[in-house]
C-alpha cells in the first residue's frame, strides 16, 4: 500500500477520535497473568462442545474472572443464512451489558449504515446461575449479518479521500470505525459500561463472559454449533471485582480473533506507537493492543504474515546472523521501524482469522523472542486433520480425546507434538495452520512456520479403525517385547490390537501382571519400525491397553480382592487408602478426576500413601496433574514412581533419593531443587527444567525447552539426548565435575519414528549456553563444530580429555540402557567411528578455562592423525 493512502487512512482514524473526544489516557486496567490459551482447527467443522474440555482443563490457569471463545469457519445452515451471505457479509456480534440500550444502538450504529441480511438474538439459558463457572450475568448478544449500504460507503470514501483504496478494504475500515465509535460511546467513555462490539468480521464470532470460558458453551447453548476453528481463553486478571466481560479475550479486529497468554512490560510504549498512528485502545488491556497491532500491520500496512511476525517478535542475536543477507536487510528495516511497537516481555498469541478473499482460514501461534510463556503445537493427520495450539499439553490431549469420542477417525494421540523457538531463524517462533480447499473442494490443513516452510508430519498411511473393539487372540502367556516388535511390521492393526488385548487379558493372572505392564510400557516408550502404520495409532492402541490393564487391577476398596502385588486406587475409592498388606507392593493411582493441585490432588494422595507405607507407585491417566513425587521429604531411596499420561508441572521437584520414570513427554518446571535421586523422561521436558537443582541423575530422551538447569548447584548429572531452546545451564555453579560436581551432556540427536538415530543439524541452536556459569561443565556432541563462541557468555570451549570421557561414559551407558541410544552410535559420524574428543565438545566456566586443556589442541591432534594417514 502506498504511503499516501496509509496516511489518509490514519487521518480518517484521527478525525474520528477527535470527533469522539477520545481521551489519550492509557493506563492498563489490570495486570494480567499468564492465563490459559487453547486453539484448534479441524478440516471438518466440529461442534463447540469440544472447546469445553480443554477449557475446563485449564481452570488452574485462570481465576474465573474472564473467559472467552471464538469460532471461525462456521456452518451457514446453523446460523440460518446462505453460504453466500456467510462468505460475503460481516458477522457483527454486539454485547449488551445493559439490555435497554439495544434499540438506541441499533438506531444509531446499525440500521442507518447497514443492509442487514439476517439478524437475531443469541439463545441462552434462562437462569444463568444454573450454569457452573459463571460469576455474573453474561451480556445479551445480538448477531447481525451486514454489508455497508453502498451510499454510506461512497460517502465514507469521499469524506476520507479513499478513492484509490480497494472498495472492499474501505468497507472493512468503515466497519472498523463504526465499531470504534460504538465502543467509544457505550463502553470506553462511560464509567458504567453498557455495550460493546464482541467481533466484526466474516465468518468469525466471539463470545465472552465473566467466569470460566467453558461456561459460554453452556450459557449460549453452542454445544452443537460447528466451526473449523475454535480458540478459548481463561483469564487471570488481578482485579478481584470484575462485573463485565469487556476485558476478557479474545479481542477482535476485522476478520480475526486473538487470545494472549502473558503480560507486556512495555504496554505504554506499544500504546504510544499505536497512538502515533491514530489507533486508540478502548479496553485498556495488552491483548486489545496486540489485536490492534496485528490489524495495523496487516490491514493498513499490508505486510505479508512473515513480516508482521517479525515486527512483533524480532529475530535477534545469533539467529539474526544466521538469516540470509537478503532477509537480514528486510528484517533490519522492519525492526528499525517497528521495534517500539514490538511487545516486550512474556507473551504468546493464538490468532484465528478468516482470509475472506481467498476463502481460507488460519490458526496461528506466535511466541515472543524470549519464549517466556509455555506453548505446545500438535498435528493430527489423516482423513480428518486437526491442528492444535495450547499452553499445556494436557489441553491438547483433552481436545483430541473429546474429538475422538465423536469421530473415531480422529486419534487421541497426535502425529506430532512440538514447540516453537521464539525469534529463531529456523521457525521464527510461529506456526500457522492454513485451512484451504483442495481440488475436491474439501478443506485440508497445511501447517507452515513463519517462513512458509511446511512442517514435516511423520509418515505412515495406515490408520487403525478405532470404531471396532479388539478381540484377544487365544493364549495366556505374555510375549516378549522383541517378538511383538519384530512381528508388528507384518501385522495389520487388528492383529496388533488383538495381540495387545491378549496381554491385558493375561495380566489378570497376578503372576503375569508385572511382565504385561513391562511389555506394554516398552511398546509405549521405544521407537521401532511400524511399516505403513501410523505411529500415533500404534501408540494409542498400546496406551488404551495399558490403561485398560491398570484399570482392571484389584481396587484397594475391594473386600474380596484377588491376591497380587498391585492395588488400584482412584478418585472414587481414595477414602479407602490403607496400609499395604502382605504381598502388596505397588499402589496404582488412577489420576483421572483428581484435581491438578490442592488438598484433593493425586499427588497429595501419593504422599498419604507413602506415609502409610507404600513405596512403589504407578500413576496413570494423568491429565496435567501437578507435583507428582513432591512432598515425600528426604531419604526416599526406596521409592519408585512410574508416570503415564500427561503429567503436569513441577513433577519430581525436590525429590531426595527416589526414582521417577515418566513414560511420555513431561511438562514445565520439572525437577526444581531436586536433591538426589533418578529421573527418567521418555520424551521432552518443558521450561525451566531443574531450576536450582542440587543433584540427581537425570535422563531425557527428547528435548528440553527454554532455560533448563538455571542456577543449579551441587552435583546434578544430566543427559539430554535432544537439544535445548536457550539459556542452558545459566549460572551453573555445580563445582568441579571431577570432584563430584555436576555436568550436562547434550547429545543433539533424535530417534525418528522408526527408531533410527539422527543427528540434529544444530545440537544447540540458541544463545547463552552456560552463561555466567562458575562451576560444572557441559558436554555437547557437536562433531561438525557448529557451536560458536557467540553462543557462550562467559564460558569457554575446552578439550574433552580421557578423564572427561571416563567421567561421562557411565552416564551414557545408563542412557544406552534406558533409551537404546548406544555409545557406539553416538561416536559414529558420517559412517565412521570417532574418538570421544572428536565427537564431543566441552564448555567450562571462563574462570576455570585457564587450567583446562585448550580445545585447539584437539584440532592439532586431528590434523596429525589425518597426516599420519
Amino acid at each position: 500500500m502506498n504511503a499516501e493512502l496509509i496516511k489518509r487512512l490514519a487521518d480518517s482514524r484521527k478525525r474520528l477520535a477527535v470527533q469522539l473526544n477520545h481521551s489519550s489516557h492509557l493506563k492498563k486496567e489490570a495486570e494480567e497473568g499468564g492465563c490459559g490459551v487453547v486453539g484448534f482447527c479441524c478440516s471438518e467443522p466440529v461442534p463447540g462442545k469440544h472447546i469445553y474440555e480443554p477449557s475446563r482443563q485449564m481452570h488452574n490457569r485462570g481465576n474465573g474472572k474472564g473467559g472467552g471463545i471464538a469460532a471461525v469457519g462456521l456452518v451457514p445452515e446453523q446460523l440460518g443464512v446462505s453460504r453466500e451471505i456467510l462468505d460475503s457479509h460481516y458477522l457483527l456480534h454486539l454485547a449488551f451489558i445493559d439490555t435497554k440500550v439495544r434499540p438506541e444502538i441499533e438506531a444509531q450504529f446499525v440500521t442507518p449504515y447497514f443492509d442487514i441480511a439476517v439478524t437475531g438474538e443469541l439463545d441462552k439459558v434462562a437462569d444463568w446461575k444454573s450454569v457452573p463457572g459463571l460469576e455474573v450475568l453474561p451480556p445479551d448478544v445480538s448477531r447481525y449479518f451486514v454489508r455497508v449500504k453502498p451510499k454510506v460507503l461512497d460517502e465514507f470514501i469521499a469524506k476520507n479521500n479513499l478513492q484509490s483504496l480497494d472498495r472492499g478494504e474501505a468497507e472493512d475500515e468503515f466497519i472498523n470505525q463504526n465499531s470504534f465509535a460504538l465502543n467509544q460511546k457505550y463502553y470506553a467513555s462511560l464509567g458504567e459500561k453498557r455495550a460493546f462490539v464482541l467481533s466484526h468480521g466474516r465468518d468469525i464470532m466471539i463470545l465472552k463472559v465473566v467466569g470460566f470460558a467453558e461456561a459460554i458453551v453452556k450459557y449460549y447453548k453452542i454445544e452443537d454449533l460447528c466451526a473449523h476453528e475454535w480458540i478459548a481463553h481463561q483469564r487471570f486478571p488481578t482485579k478481584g471485582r470484575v462485573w463485565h466481560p469487556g476485558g476478557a479475550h479474545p479481542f477482535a479486529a476485522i476478520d480475526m480473533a486473538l487470545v494472549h497468554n502473558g503480560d507486556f512490560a512495555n504496554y505504554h510504549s506499544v500504546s504510544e506507537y499505536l497512538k502515533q498512528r491514530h489507533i486508540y485502545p478502548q479496553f485498556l488491556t495488552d491483548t486489545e493492543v496486540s489485536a490492534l497491532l496485528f490489524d495495523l500491520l496487516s490491514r493498513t500496512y499490508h505486510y505479508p504474515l512473515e513480516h508482521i511476525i517479525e515486527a512483533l517478535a524480532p529475530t535477534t542475536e545469533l539467529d539474526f546472523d544466521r538469516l540470509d543477507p537478503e532477509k537480514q536487510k528486510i528484517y533490519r528495516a522492519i525492526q528499525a521501524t517497528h521495534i517500539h511497537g514490538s511487545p516486550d516481555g512474556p507473551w504468546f498469541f493464538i490468532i484465528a482469522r478468516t482470509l475472506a478473499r481467498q476463502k481460507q482460514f488460519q490458526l496461528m501461534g506466535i511466541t515472543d523472542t524470549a519464549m517466556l510463556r509455555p506453548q505446545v503445537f500438535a498435528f493430527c493427520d489423516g482423513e480428518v486433520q486437526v491442528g492444535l495450539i495450547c499452553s499445556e499439553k494436557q489441553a491438547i490431549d483433552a481436545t483430541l480425546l473429546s474429538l475422538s469420542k465423536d469421530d473415531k477417525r480422529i486419534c487421541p494421540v497426535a502425529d506430532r507434538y512440538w514447540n516453537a523457538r521464539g525469534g529463531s531463524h529456523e521457525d521464527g517462533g510461529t506456526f500457522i495452520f492454513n485451512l484451504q480447499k483442495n481440488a475436491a473442494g474439501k478443506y485440508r490443513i497445511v501447517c507452515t512456520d513463519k517462513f512458509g516452510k511446511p512442517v514435516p508430519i511423520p509418515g505412515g498411511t495406515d490408520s487403525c479403525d478405532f470404531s471396532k473393539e479388539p478381540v484377544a487372540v487365544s493364549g495366556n502367556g505374555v510375549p516378549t517385547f522383541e517378538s511383538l516388535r519384530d512381528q508388528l511390521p507384518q501385522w495389520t492393526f487388528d492383529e496388533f490390537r488383538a495381540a495387545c488385548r491378549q496381554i491385558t487379558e493375561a495380566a489378570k493372572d497376578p503372576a503375569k501382571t508385572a511382565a504385561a505392564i513391562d511389555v506394554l510400557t516398552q511398546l509405549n516408550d521405544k521407537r521401532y519400525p511400524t511399516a505403513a502404520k501410523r505411529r500415533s495409532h500404534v501408540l494409542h492402541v498400546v496406551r488404551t491397553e495399558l490403561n485398560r490393564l491398570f484399570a482392571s487391577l484389584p481396587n484397594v476398596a475391594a473386600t474380596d480382592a484377588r491376591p497380587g502385588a498391585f492395588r488400584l486406587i482412584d478418585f472414587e475409592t481414595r477414602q479407602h487408602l490403607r496400609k499395604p498388606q502382605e504381598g502388596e507392593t505397588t499402589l496404582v493411582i488412577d489420576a483421572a478426576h483428581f484435581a491438578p493441585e490442592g488438598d484433593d490432588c493425586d499427588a497429595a494422595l501419593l504422599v498419604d500413601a507413602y506415609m502409610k507405607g507404600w513405596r512403589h507407585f504407578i500413576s496413570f491417566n494423568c491429565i496435567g496433574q501437578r507435583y507428582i513425587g513432591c512432598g515425600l521429604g528426604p531419604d526416599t531411596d526406596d521409592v519408585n514412581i512410574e508416570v503415564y499420561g500427561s503429567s503436569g508441572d513441577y513433577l519430581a521437584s525436590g525429590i531426595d533419593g527416589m526414582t521417577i520414570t515418566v513414560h511420555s513427554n513431561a511438562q514445565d518446571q520439572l525437577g526444581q531443587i531436586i536433591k538426589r535421586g533418578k529421573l527418567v523422561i521418555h520424551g521432552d521436558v518443558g521450561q525451566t527444567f531443574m531450576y536450582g537443582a542440587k543433584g540427581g541423575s537425570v535422563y531425557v530422551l527428547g528435548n528440553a525447552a527454554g532455560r533448563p538447569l538455571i542456577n543449579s548447584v551441587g552435583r546434578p548429572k544430566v543427559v539430554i539426548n535432544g537439544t535445548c531452546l536457550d539459556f542452558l545451564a545459566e549460572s551453573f555453579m555445580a563445582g568441579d565435575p571431577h570432584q563430584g560436581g555436576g555436568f550436562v551432556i547434550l547429545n543433539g540427536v533424535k530417534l525418528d519414528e522408526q527408531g533410527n538415530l539422527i543427528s540434529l543439524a544444530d545440537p544447540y541452536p540458541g544463545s547463552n549456553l552456560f552463561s555466567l556459569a562458575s562451576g560444572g561443565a557441559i558436554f555437547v556432541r557437536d562433531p561438525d563444530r557448529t557451536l560458536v563462541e557467540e553462543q557462550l557468555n562467559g564460558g569457554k570451549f575446552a578439550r574433552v580429555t580421557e578423564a572427561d570421557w571416563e567421567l561421562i561414559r557411565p552416564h551414557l551407558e545408563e542412557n544406552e540402557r534406558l533409551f537404546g541410544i548406544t555409545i557406539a552410535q553416538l561416536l559414529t559420524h558420517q559412517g565412521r567411528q570417532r574418538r570421544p574428543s572428536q565427537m564431543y565438545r566441552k564448555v567450562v566456566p571462563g574462570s576455570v578455562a585457564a587450567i583446562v586443556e585448550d580445545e585447539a589442541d584437539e584440532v592439532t591432534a586431528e590434523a596429525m592423525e589425518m597426516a599420519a594417514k
Partner: protein
Amino acid sequence: MLDARARPAAPEAGALPISALLPENTLKTRVPQEPVERVTRPAPSRYRNEIAKYFVHRSQDCRLCGKCTEVCSYGVHAHPSGYKYFGEPLHHLCIGPSCEKTDHYCVAHCPNGALQVREDPMYQVLGDARWSSDLILATWKMAETGDVPPAGYDYDYECGKSGGGFDRLRFRFPDRPPVALRADEIDTSVCLNKRGDGRPKITIDVPWYGGGMSFGSVSNVTQLSKARAAVAFNTFTCTGEGGFMERMRPYDDHVITQVATGLFGVREETIQRVPIVEFKYAQGAKPGLGGHLLGDKNTPAVARMREAVLGISLFSPFPFHSVYSIEDHMKHIDWIKHVNRRALISTKVSTPTDVDMVAVGSYSAGTHIVHIDGGYGGTGAAPDIAKKNIAMPIEYAIGKVHRFLSDEGVRDKVTLIASGGIRSAYDVAKAIALGADGVVIGTSEMVALGCVRCSRCESGRGCPRGIATTDTELAAKMELDWGTQRLINLYSAWRKVLVSILQRLGLRSVSELRGRTDLMMHLDYTNNGAKTA
C-alpha cells in the same frame, strides 16, 4: 468431574498434629524445640568505649580527688579500686550537658575545673539522615536495657532526619486518651492467617518479625540471635536465601524458610520444617536486581551450605525463571502448599507503581501474607543507585495496597506486612496506621547488635563489627547469648513504646490501629495546630 470450587472443605489442619501432615522422614529430622525466656537483662556494649553522644574530657588539671566518681550517678567516671589513675570515662553512659540542671553534674563539682562535657565528634558523623545518630544510639540503649532510653539522653528516636517518609508523619495524639487503658490490657498480637483455609491460624505476639538475611550475608551468631529472639517473643525470623543452618533447627517453629530466586539451600526438608514459607520475588532496596553475594563472602562454610563453588560470586537471578505471570505464581504457591501442608505462604514483593495489583493478584493466587518491601531498606550490599531510587516509598505503597485490597473486598482475608526502613516502634505504629497488619524489620536488628551503618557489609571479609560477615575471626567477636539478649531487649523496648502509643490513642489492640490514617498527620500537608508527638 470435580469442580474446583465444589471440593469438600479441607479438614481443619490446625487441629491435626504435625505428624499427620508431614512425612515421617521429615519428622525424624525434627529436633526438640528449645524455649527462650522473654526476660530483659542488661546487655552492655561489646566495646569498652562504645560510641557515645557526649564526650567527657579530663584535663591534666585533674588531681585525682575522686569527687566526680562520687557525684556521677551514671558511672561515667570509673576508678577501679587499686588503681591510682582514672580509666577513660565511659562516655556512652553520660547524659550530657543537660546534667547541669541536676545536683550531680561532675563539671560543676570538679574543684579544679578539669572536666568538660561536650558533644562527641563521632556522634556528629555517625549514621545518616535516615538512621540518625540519635536513632542509632537510642536503639543501642534499648538493646542494652530493654527499656525506653532515659529522657536525660535527649535522644530523638521517634524520627530520623531524612525529611521525608515516616519522618514527615506524626501521630495526632489527643490531649488525654479517649479511654484510659492499662498497659496489660493492650493486645499487640497479629494473626497471620486470615484466609480461613484450614491452615493454622498462626498468631505472633508483636506486630513484627525478622526479615530474611542469609547465612552468607550475616554470621551464624547473628542468624541464631534473631531466631532466639523470635522464639522469646513468639514471632518469626527468616532464613534469607542462603539455606538453613543445622543450628537453627531447635527454633524451627519460629523460622520462615525463604524461597528466593537463586533457590540456594532450598530443599524439600527445609520447606517442610517450618510453619511459614516466604517467596522472595524482589527486595525494595533493589527491585529488578537479584541477590548478589560477592566472592569474598563465599567462604567454605557458605559454599558448602549453598552447594556452590568456593570464592565465586553468587548471583540470584532477578526474576524466578519459573514465574513470569500470576498463574505461574499460583502454581508456585500450590507447590509449596503441597510440599508443606501446614505452611502459610508469604509473598514478598517490592513496591512498583502497580503494587496494588500485584498484591491482589497474590491474594487470588493463594498467599496468606502479602509482604511489600519499600525502598528505604537495604544494607550496604544493595547498590546505592538502587536504594531509595527505584521502589515506591513504603508509606505510599502501604496506603495504596490497603485501599485497593479493601475496595476489592479481600482486605480481611490477607495479612499485609510492610518493610523497608522500619527503624523504631514509631515506624511500626505508623506503618500499621497507614494500613499494614504488621511489619518486617531488618536493619534495626543489625543496629541493636552494634551496627554503625558504615555500609561496608559487602566488602572484603565483611562487617568490621562481626555482624554481617561469615569470616570466622570477625564473627567470633559476638557471642550468641549477648546477641540474643540485645534483640530481646530491643523487642521489649519497642513493645513498651508501641503499647504507650496505643494507650495514648486509646486503642485496645494493634489491629484497631490498622488503617487509622485519621490519627496521623503529614507535616507537609496539614498545619492546623493539632498537637503532635
